[in-house]
């Protein structure tokens, strides 16, 4: 048997409670923000709030704040590649001349 015991950071219930309360408040905020007309910024605000919430979950509920750098790199890579997929594909659609839905003069 080994003498190495798993050593890990134990997050206290108080922290968890703070986080969940913050999450609930942010949920309220995001619903409220959806009813304010911010034009194209509605989606930006909604995604920003969602990202804050997700970050809190990742850092505290999932202990990412206390894991080795290596694991944090893995998380970062995942987000980065997701961004790559979305951003690079959309860059094609946004910069193209899209002749969608035009009718032909004959068939």
């Amino acid at each position, binding site marked *: *048997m080994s003498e190495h015991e798993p050593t890990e950071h134990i997050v206290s219930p108080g922290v968890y409670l703070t986080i969940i309360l913050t999450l609930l408040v942010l949920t309220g905020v995001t619903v409220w923000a959806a009813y304010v007309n911010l034009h194209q910024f509605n989606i930006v605000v909604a*995604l920003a709030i969602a990202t804050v919430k997700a970050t809190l979950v990742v850092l505290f509920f*999932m202990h990412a704040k206390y894991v080795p750098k290596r*694991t944090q790199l893995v998380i970062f890579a995942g987000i980065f590649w997701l961004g790559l997929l979305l951003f690079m594909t959309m860059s094609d659609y946004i910069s193209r001349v899209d002749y*969608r839905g035009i009718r032909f003069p004959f068939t």
Partner: protein
Amino acid sequence: MHRTGELYGQFKTLEQQKDTATLGMWIFLVTEVMFFGGIMLAYTLNRHVYFHAFAAGSNTLSLQLGGFNTVVLLASSFTMAMAVWSAQTGKKQLISVFLTLTILLGFVFFGVKYVEYGQKFHHHLVPGKSFDIFYCVDNPTKCEDVSAEELTTEREELEKARAADPDLNAHAQLYYSAYFGMTGLHALHMVIGAGLLLWLLKNSLAGLYSPRWNTPVDMVGLYWHFVDIVWIYLFPLLYLIDRHK
């Protein structure tokens, strides 16, 4: 490989074993991110091209039900985190209590989702031949769960959307493809998670988890939180398009 107590044969120490499991789980979650990424891209593109149809589709969803489910899922994440904490600090009874709570909250989520899906079937909002976003507006008697008042505003909104996008029905169907695709995939993950939680509960009732060894609780916890994060994004993306009127 043979197992000696809690240590599997391919590892030298419990620490290495735990480290390996955690890294493996995080990498798995990254693959999950990419898995959802594909459908996210389909959503992003179609929302970009057919914004009016997406807004119209989104406004037919019930914000009450969606919001309630968000709260339920966040709460279940909290109880899951507490289950992990109980395992880490050796409170054996509490592990089972928090796991049970998590499972119950998960089932509440399923219940609400069932009601929501049922409504969509009823209102002919499931992609396919019978899809008709005007169904309730055109057949108010068939949608007795929607008030006359709501129907009037809905009609106005749909007419406006149709003025902007003549092919509204087809494109709203794309919104519903995204809705069912994303929430269905999410629900599938929840089902798998609920199965894992039941398995954990069985083991925790047998007293298997201790501060020395609680890797399964920790791993399922990571998975459950991930499913929560997916919903954190799905909620604004699906329910909150263009709500201000």
